[in-house]
């Protein structure tokens, strides 16, 4: 064992190979202080920690469950009271109601009312679905993601087609002549009178394609959609006679560019994300569950 000369004070403090009582004491104190700070922070922020203090963001603690200040203000506002002008009595009333509600919710959990009350069960299902959906829309998709979605579903982003078409029905024998007259530009009323036909009245002025499809039926609509403005269809035989479609104006659906469709794309993107999240939640719950099905229902 050899004795060594004690190093200079500054060097000894930094040299971890040398025992330095003051350094040890200070580091121990700092560690304890840090521990206390962390414990203090956890005391006031961690969930499930018992506290005797009402946090600043709450108006009350009911069995350690905070009643949020935002919700309290919201309740005051729901009573058409400006929170700034609410009297102490109003505030007490609202707070008491909220505490009572919280107590009853906690009691409901103890009693497990969800097991027996169909309305509560339904509300619980909806709440879990809503939670999954809320998680899905917390982040805004960037422009590239939206554009990718738009490119993938391009057909969806178009204006609805519009047409102004008249549906005339004639005796089958007169249909060919009537068509010739209409194609030559004769007024539908005149042609109908001359060849014993009539306007079916199925369409009325300018209509979206979906409305024209409903009014005309699939076969006539398909024929109408193919017509250009000013054209007359071939005769289409039906139970009530031969139909001639006179297209006064046909504006087919027009594709929206990305910028025009952006708001709709964003809404659809989020709706798709919500559906995906809810599907994933469903799958997750089923995977982790132990579901036994009776033999007769397998």
């Amino acid at each position, binding site marked *: 064992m050899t004795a060594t000369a004690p190093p200079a004070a500054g060097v000894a403090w930094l040299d971890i190979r040398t025992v330095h009582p003051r350094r040890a004491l200070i580091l121990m104190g700092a560690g304890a202080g840090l521990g*206390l*700070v962390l414990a203090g922070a956890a005391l006031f922020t961690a969930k499930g920690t018992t506290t005797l203090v009402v946090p*600043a963001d709450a108006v009350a603690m009911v069995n350690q469950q905070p009643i949020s200040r935002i*919700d309290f*203000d919201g309740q005051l506002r729901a009573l058409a009271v400006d929170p700034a002008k609410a009297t102490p009595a109003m505030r007490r009333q609202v707070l008491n109601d909220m505490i009572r509600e919280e107590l009853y919710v906690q009691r409901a959990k103890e009693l497990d009312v969800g097991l027996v009350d169909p309305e509560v069960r339904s509300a619980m299902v909806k709440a879990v679905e809503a939670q999954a959906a*809320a998680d899905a*829309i917390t982040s805004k998709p960037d422009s590239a993601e939206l554009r990718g979605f738009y490119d993938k579903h391009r057909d969806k982003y178009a204006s609805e087609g519009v047409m102004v078409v008249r549906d005339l029905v004639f005796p089958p024998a007169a249909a060919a002549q009537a068509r010739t007259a209409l194609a030559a530009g004769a007024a539908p009323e005149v042609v109908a009178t001359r060849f014993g036909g009539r306007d079916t009245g199925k369409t*009325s002025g300018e209509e979206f394609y979906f*409305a024209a499809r409903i009014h005309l039926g699939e076969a006539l609509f398909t024929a109408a959609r193919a017509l250009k403005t000013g054209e007359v269809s071939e005769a289409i035989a039906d139970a009530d006679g031969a139909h001639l479609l006179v297209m006064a104006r046909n504006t087919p659906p027009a594709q929206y560019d990305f*910028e025009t469709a952006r708001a709709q794309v964003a809404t659809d993107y989020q709706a798709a994300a919500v559906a995906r999240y809810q599907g994933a939640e469903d799958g997750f719950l089923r995977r982790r569950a132990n579901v036994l099905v009776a033999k007769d229902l397998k």
Partner: protein
Amino acid sequence: MLSLGVVLVAGMAQSQAREGRLLRLDPDARLAPDQRTAALAAGRRVFRAQCAGCHGPDGRGDTGYGAPNLADRDWLYGTGAVGEIEQTIAYGIRSHQPKGWNLADMPAFGAPRPSAKERLDPLSPGDIGDVIAFLSARRGATASAEAVARGRAIYQGRGGCYDCHGGDAAGDPAIGAPNLIDAVWLYGDGSPPSVFRSIAQGRRGVMPGFAGRLSAVQLRQVSLYVKSLSEAP
């Protein structure tokens, strides 16, 4: 070292006390100048990180997305009270959060079934044009008297527009129904084709709720900041 720890702890305690004071105040209470400056600076940081993506760095919105301009004095939901802004930021709009704003959607009148919630019949392109003429006339523009009369009948009748936007078409901030007779547009530029698209395709913009993602004090700070945007001269 010990003194550094003490300073650190004291700083944290002071900061917590300051945040506590801010939260316990009524949301719309007048703040002391230094308290307001600190809250707005913190709120701006939160806004830049969480809100600017949709509302823009200056909060002027994006009519392409239907993200409202927060720097004007027009409030789509509520009256612009800080408490209301805070509630909107906390729980969102059509965010699937039960406490969020979710009372009304703009039906798609150019679709076979305009609304999933209400029984409404579709409108024809001509009907929509008439409603636009009626609204233009309400804004003081010239429009065909016949079209305006037809549009008024649709607005007040089978279109059911009055139900959300009000008999005077001035909107209803209790449900987020925009004013249709001012110069503020949530979607598009207010031109007839753009209004036509809104009526024909419907609108249902979404804003996520930030409760749980932002702390209570951050919610308050960003709400104060949003309010301050509309107060700028």
